[in-house]
């Protein structure tokens, strides 16, 4: 018994029939073919699937697509505007904040929300803000520096 959902993803209005049990992450990946959002644990522990739902960083692997009815969603593909990287994306590139890149989209979305809430975070606040996103490659230091870079860049 499919349900129709209406929502906006990266600024584009969508209307799709989905099964009620379809997870938001699978809606984004399989229906909309926005495969930048990854699945790393299926239990909302690793943060690879993080997307912005109405301005809040949400782990899309434990949210149903039908729960996003009426929502405005931003995924990693929607962060760059007019070909310009988001400051956090730029920071990750400048500061080598990624290696295998699998956690990166979720990490960037979380960091973007962190800076939305606190434009000038301390190192401790950055670490706390990223606690819900796991990275196995970088050891986090370059990620933290990437967020600091983005904060400085946005302040300019």
């Amino acid at each position, binding site marked *: 018994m499919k349900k129709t959902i209406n929502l906006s993803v990266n600024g584009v209005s969508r209307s799709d029939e989905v*099964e009620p*049990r*379809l997870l938001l992450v*699978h809606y984004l*990946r*399989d229906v909309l*073919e*926005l*495969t*930048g*959002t*990854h*699945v*790393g*644990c*299926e*239990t909302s*522990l*690793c943060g*690879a699937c993080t997307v912005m739902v109405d301005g809040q960083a949400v782990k899309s692997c434990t949210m149903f697509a039908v729960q996003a009815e009426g929502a405005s969603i931003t*995924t*990693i*593909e929607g*962060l*760059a505007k007019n070909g310009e*990287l988001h400051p956090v*994306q730029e920071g*990750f*590139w*400048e500061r*080598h904040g*990624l*290696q*295998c*890149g*699998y*956690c*990166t*989209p979720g990490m*960037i979305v979380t960091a973007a929300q962190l800076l939305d809430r606190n434009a000038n975070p301390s*190192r*401790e606040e*950055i*670490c*706390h803000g*990223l*606690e819900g*996103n*796991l*990275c*196995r*490659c*970088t*050891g*986090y*230091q*370059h*990620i*933290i520096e990437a967020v600091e870079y983005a904060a400085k860049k946005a302040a300019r």
Partner: protein
Amino acid sequence: MSNKYVGQRVKRTEDPRLIKGLAHYVDDISLPGTLHVAFVRSVYAHAKITGIDTSAALETPGVVAVYTGADVNDKVGPVPCAGALPDLKVPDHRVLAKDKVYFMGHPIAVVVAKDRYVARDAADLVVVDYDELPVVTDVEEAAKGGPVIHDAWSDNIAYRLTSGEGDIDAAFAAADRTVKQRVLHQRLAPIAMEPRGVLARYFPGEQELTLWSSTQIPHLMRTQVAIMIGIPENKLRVITPEVGGGFGSKLNVYAEEALLAWISMQLGKPVKWIESRRENIQATIHGRGQVGEIEIAFKNDGTLTGLRYSVFADLGAYHQLLTPAIPTLTGLMLSGAYKIPAIQMNITACFTNKMATDAYRGAGRPEATYIVERGLDLVAADLGMDPAEVRRKNFPAPNEFPFHTATGLDYDSGDYEAALDKAQQIAGYAKLREEQKKARDEGRLIGIGISTYVEICALGPSQAMPAGGWESATVRIEPTGKVTVLTGASPHGQGQETSFAQIAADELGVSIDDVTVIHGDTGVVQYGIGTFGSRATAVGGTAVFVAIQKLKEKADKIAAHMLKADASRLSFEGGKYSLQQAAAAAAATGSSDPVVPVGEAPAGALPEPQVDGKSGVTIQEIALAAHIAKDLPPDTEPGLSATYFFEPKNFTFPFGTHIAVVEIDRETGDIEFLRYVAVDDCGKVINPLLVDGQVHGGIVQSIGQALFEEVVYNEDGQLITGTLMDYALPRASDIPKQFELDRTETPSPVNPLGVKGVGEAGTIGATPAIVGAVVDALAPFGVKHLDMPIKPENVWRIINGH
């Protein structure tokens, strides 16, 4: 050759696609009509299968097929093991369980459906009847006897091996003093953030199969899967798209890869399986898993005279690709960074009712370093010496290299004292010790841990490897002057698309933007070995470097022909061959020859190389001339391409010193890093930014092993750390405030780049420094050693006497 890129902190060329979410990992590839696969896995650690009922699953709408061991085990060959040891017991490891299951997560059946949700639902409808059997999970129990896992043998001992050189008994008999310690290396889960995944597509007309797999070894997988499913190797193409981390866990050929390939051939459809994290912790290889006893013989002045390590290695239920080989790597590195005249390792490797252990970042070497470094701390404590001084006393001097160890290796180059000195200087070691003393007097628990490690990298000479230790590269310059590098190494996050491009751009004098590095596609790239064992740059990068020299030999000849000069009169600089005299004159007048841009040709026609009357010719012009081939020197093949297979003569031996400073919270037992200093020597550095990243990541995986991570099975063989809720990975808030990194640079004589490798330095060097720091902090309580992971609870119990 002047270096514009090599040695610089060049930003990665890989990154734009990754930070925009536009990269393609296996699960991001969609093919029309793809069927999805879900596995039915054993819920018991050891049981007889008395029945499998697939009828309900098969009746589920959307289900296309269900296969059990009875359907596939005589059609798909066994899961391969490349470890060759004397008298090694190799169980018959079929892709699906036959009549018994041997570990929790053992695959029993596979369901194929039109939708991944339906496949999962139907897998839950497969009814398996079991008769439980007694379980053995403890490796020492398994060694003593315990329930025998494999019916083919009367015990669980897969092999015993004694290795080492020197008269170990005499060393202990003559020693002034000895120390002895039981040491545990817990099981770890590699947890690449991208789980494993396979997409297989059979083309019935062409009788060709393409396998997309998240692997570190595309070519070795092609060979093995071809053998397993009986398809000609040249009809199988393995593609590794973006790979989301490996750490050794994807240095393997798993049942799932061959099964998916076979199923695609049966059904004539693309089939996809993406591992869940729960499956990943159950059925992707684990790392470490050793428990042993270290004994060290030494003189009263701290000089080491002998080292013995007797260890039980927990192999799990089956061998994966390198399972039995990993403990032998521990044996190779038991000399650490020290002169030890007699060394002996006694391995008893056993089967247990658990997932197989295999290579996890460091693969046998972190065990060796941990044992030796913990041992050195015990020697220091026994003698009342500073741990740094015991180490310094036993280092081989730089002029003693190549340094032969009693484990049979010849270390290539090293200056261990320089790295120790530098780390101590950065840390302010003497002052730290004073501050520690003062803090102790105030009741604070501060500890300093030190590790002076050496590792074996650039695996390796083919003589020492099961399936070739060389690496390959093809470098070609296309007619438009763009440079294509094909590497047999298969990087998966390390950044070789950038570092190999740096090498190529410098050697050819072109912009790095004109270089593309291609890897991970057996249909495009010549045979290669893969990325593991910190080998990609030292072996694969060298292959790129030498291939370019070969290509330039040909370019030299073409340049001489084009400039109508003898090749000996030409110089090559900045991507251009010049007549030496003319070049000097041009330099004197400040002028230079205009270079005809290749892009300015009329549409539809290739531009003609124009060199008449010129004193120089660019490498791009040569490439064009080589492809047009109208006027080449006699006996010159058209095209501008070279392939080289580099066989290293030895391993490389990076080294360094790590110093950790921790403070323990008396109330909670919590461990906080106050400082972390690492001075690593990985030989010549191609890209310091990437090296820093490798070191950071390795250290944090060490923090995980030292303080958090542990794969736990209960006595029934149930995996009780089956999700990331129970298996604790380090988070951003668990790391030191700032890693203080530095380097010394001792080039390796093993390859012309002088590089050694750095991928595993962190997981090898850091663990003993961290554990040493915690033990040092707790020294006032009489603590001399603690097993990992050192959890706050353990620490709190020590402080509070519980």
